[in-house]
């Protein structure tokens, strides 16, 4: 029977997929594994709306399956079926019930919506300014005197109020495990609040097409307890209020020379340097190289040799360094720690 076949094929398909995908994603990345109140509220809305919709779908599929089996033309069946214009009672029923279901969805939608748009001043939340660039993330903590990039360090269990913008094209700031996203528009400032209730590393993504390396614009969120966070912030502030420390090891010192000549124009270390590229003060403590490569000396060397190959279209030029220079730079950069 055609209808029956259809139904079972579909069911088994979905069943199979559901089974395979019940991994539901990584703790660090999945919106289905909320690690904070914002993501939880959003996940609750997802569950409510999908439950209601699945309920509707089941009703539709029951009628659908029944109709296809029961009213399929049998061989030799003659005559014209009764022509039915409509049925007022039914039509009212399937207008009113969906409408009521929408009201059930609408109420938490409205309350959650307004709760998420609250803005928290510095007495109630840690303030962080986010500026998105092609293809990296700049983070500033104005009340703490700290500027950093790529790794967003946050205290656990505390509200964080973000002001986001972009330095070039539209990007979008998204940490799925902590909450939904907000667009970063050039020339404008948007606001969003998030809170992480677990310590650990969470993955951040850019979620608005922004050029060739949009897919490679990951950032990391490092959530730690309040003491550790304070110590990190103080360490950063301390380092950033002074001149860069002179490297002692000869190879690292050579690297620092190269750095001062070729990199300081765009990158800042401690209190010195440009702002066109990411702040590198605590580069050695970062999870990744260029946001995406595992943090190893080999990968850093690969990046320094040919940035365009790792992240097509990014704004870091190829400095045409030879292997010795790269090695020295790598040595220097592994001293850039605030721990």
């Amino acid at each position: 029977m055609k209808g029956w076949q259809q139904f079972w094929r579909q069911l088994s398909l979905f069943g199979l997929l559901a089974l395979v995908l019940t991994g539901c994603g990584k703790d660090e990345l999945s919106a289905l594994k909320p690690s904070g109140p914002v993501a939880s509220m959003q996940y609750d809305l997802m569950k409510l709306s999908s439950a209601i919709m699945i309920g509707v779908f089941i009703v539709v599929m029951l009628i659908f399956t029944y109709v296809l089996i029961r009213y399929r033309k049998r061989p030799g069946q003659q005559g014209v079926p009764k022509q039915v214009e409509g049925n007022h009672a039914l039509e009212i029923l399937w207008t009113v019930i969906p409408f009521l279901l929408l009201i059930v969805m609408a109420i938490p939608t409205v309350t959650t919506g307004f709760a998420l748009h609250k803005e928290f001043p510095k007495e109630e939340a840690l303030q962080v300014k986010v500026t998105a660039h092609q293809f990296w993330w700049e983070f500033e903590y104005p009340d703490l005197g700290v500027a950093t990039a790529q790794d967003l360090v946050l205290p656990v269990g505390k509200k964080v109020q973000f002001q986001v913008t972009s330095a070039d094209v539209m990007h979008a700031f998204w940490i799925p495990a902590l909450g939904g996203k907000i667009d970063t528009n050039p020339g404008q400032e948007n606001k969003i609040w998030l809170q992480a209730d677990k310590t650990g590393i969470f993955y951040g993504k850019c979620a608005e097409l922004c050029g060739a390396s949009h897919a490679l614009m990951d950032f990391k969120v490092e959530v730690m307890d309040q003491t550790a966070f304070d110590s990190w912030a103080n360490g950063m502030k301390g380092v950033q209020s002074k001149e860069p420390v002179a490297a002692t090891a000869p190879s690292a010192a050579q690297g620092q020379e190269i750095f001062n000549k070729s990199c300081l124009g765009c990158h800042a270390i401690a209190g010195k340097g440009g702002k066109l590229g990411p702040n590198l003060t605590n580069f050695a403590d970062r999870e990744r190289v260029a946001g995406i490569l595992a943090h190893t000396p080999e990968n850093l060397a690969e990046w320094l040799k040919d940035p365009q190959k790792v992240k097509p279209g990014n704004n870091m030029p190829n400095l045409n360094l030879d292997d010795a220079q790269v090695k020295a730079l790598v040595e220097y950069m592994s001293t850039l720690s605030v721990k």
Partner: protein
Amino acid sequence: MSAHASHAPAPKRSGLWDWLTTVDHKKIAILYLIAGGIFFLAGGYEALLIRLQLMYPEASVVGAKTFNELITMHGTTMIFLAVMPVIFALMNAVVPLQIGARDVAFPFVNALGFWLFFFGGVLLNTSWFLGGAPDAGWTSYTTLALNQYSGRGVDFYVLGLQIAGLGTLIGGINFLVTIINMRAPGMTFMRMPMFTWASFITSGLILFAFPAITVGLVLLMFDRLFGGNFFNPDAGGNVVIWEHLFWIFGHPEVYILILPAFGVISEIISTFARKRLFGYSSMVFATALIGFLGFMVWAHHMFTTGLGAIANTLFGLATMLIAVPTGIKIFNWLLTMWGGQIRFPTANLFAVGFIPTFTIGGMTGVMLAVPPADYQYHDSYFVVAHFHYVIVGGLVFGLFAGLYYWWPKMFGKMLNETIGKWNFWTFFIGFHLTFFPQHFLGLMGMPRRVFTYLKGQDLDVGNFISTIGVFGMTIGTILFLINVVVAAKGKRAPADPWDGRSLEWTIPSPPPEYNFAQTPLVRGLDAFWIEKMAGNKGMTPAEPLGDIHMPSPSFLPFLMSVGLFIAGYGFMYHNYVVVAIGLILTFGCMFARSVKDDPGYHIHEDEIEEKGVKA
């Protein structure tokens, strides 16, 4: 009717010249179908490359920039150059026949609409060979789309779509006037078939939506080519204005896409269940309501833009409301089949397969309408899954259904049923395999428009399955093409192969040039079915047999479109001599058309092949 037509014999044109100069809606329908079909294959090939690149993490089937070109062109081509033209193919082939008319209100403008679409589409696709296709997404957000951040490809997008969009706009006006003014006697609005109703409301949406995108494209063109600052924040511009203009068009656009499919499904379900459509009046009302509400919800594409809680909530609630008339339609289709005698030729397989698939797409649509939840879904693969469910699982299934259904009327041949069943099942299963996992990929943190994804993010399995599904859809599409070739060699189709209910089935397959020897008299909804139930073989004519006046063919629509095509290149390359040549060609043809009246020609009473009944 005009009393001044020339009594010269009908011009005999054949071959390519016939097709380049035709103003006959039936031939224009075939032109739309062929061109749309070719662009569909191009868009499908782009999709294949996209999914091959995403089959494995960190793959290098194509590079980052090429990938961005592929996704941009896939979306733009499929929406503007593939499915919309096929919709226009069906509207052209069917609507005049369903209302008992001999052509559309403005046959010349009809041809112009086709050639403008065609040349706009060609211009856009030459970008592949002229330095690179546009790569800022089919939505072309600023400031990425400004020339500081993207190359000449976006100019092709801006100019190609303006030209193609103009064609669509005039097509919409044409169908509105045709349906309002040219229905056969007795066919009141509430006796029109659902496909005609759907075409009518869709045409209204086209009329009011396309000017918004036209303005957006013009402003983007000014910024890119003439130093404008609409979207440049450094000079006071605002990037969000583009989003508003685009989506004020973009949301009605997706209803422009789906409403004709709804019309097709209504026709087919009704015919193959041998029952009249359940709840016809509420179907009409629901379609109109969906069209109207479609203009009120555009900012649900912009929930994360920063419009604020009040705007987001209002737009979210309005969006949820659209679920109500859509649900009404689904229940009406189910109840149409209830109590019927359902047959399953391929047309009905696609129509029936549409129901659960589109329902799933609608469900995820309601989920997306909740703004706080959308902050997670937006710009992730969840959205990609949603819109492919409604556009492919809804619209494309509807288009396949309509093609299988109306193929005999358009071409005089039946598509093969065995190949059709294989076409359906491979495409259907392939479709679900491709897009169902993508819901989960999005929820698991995969953004959209990414040329790759990193290893170790748990995104591998879903992407792999999704790519496998594409092979199914590819096979399904190839089977359809094979079917077209096989059908061409088949037997001639009868006038009424499906035991139909509406006027198009009362005339031969394919119809004669003039459609109806005598305009029929309509006595109610499902005009042909009423006559059949009363024991009549055909329709009662509403006029005596007489000479039939037809519009003359013309090469001017082709030339006018070529003129704009040329001017488009001139603008892009800042060559104003070329611009002048192109515009002079276009406006010169307009001038010629205005000055030289078209008297048309007559088909004489004795040339009419059928034996008409003298009223």
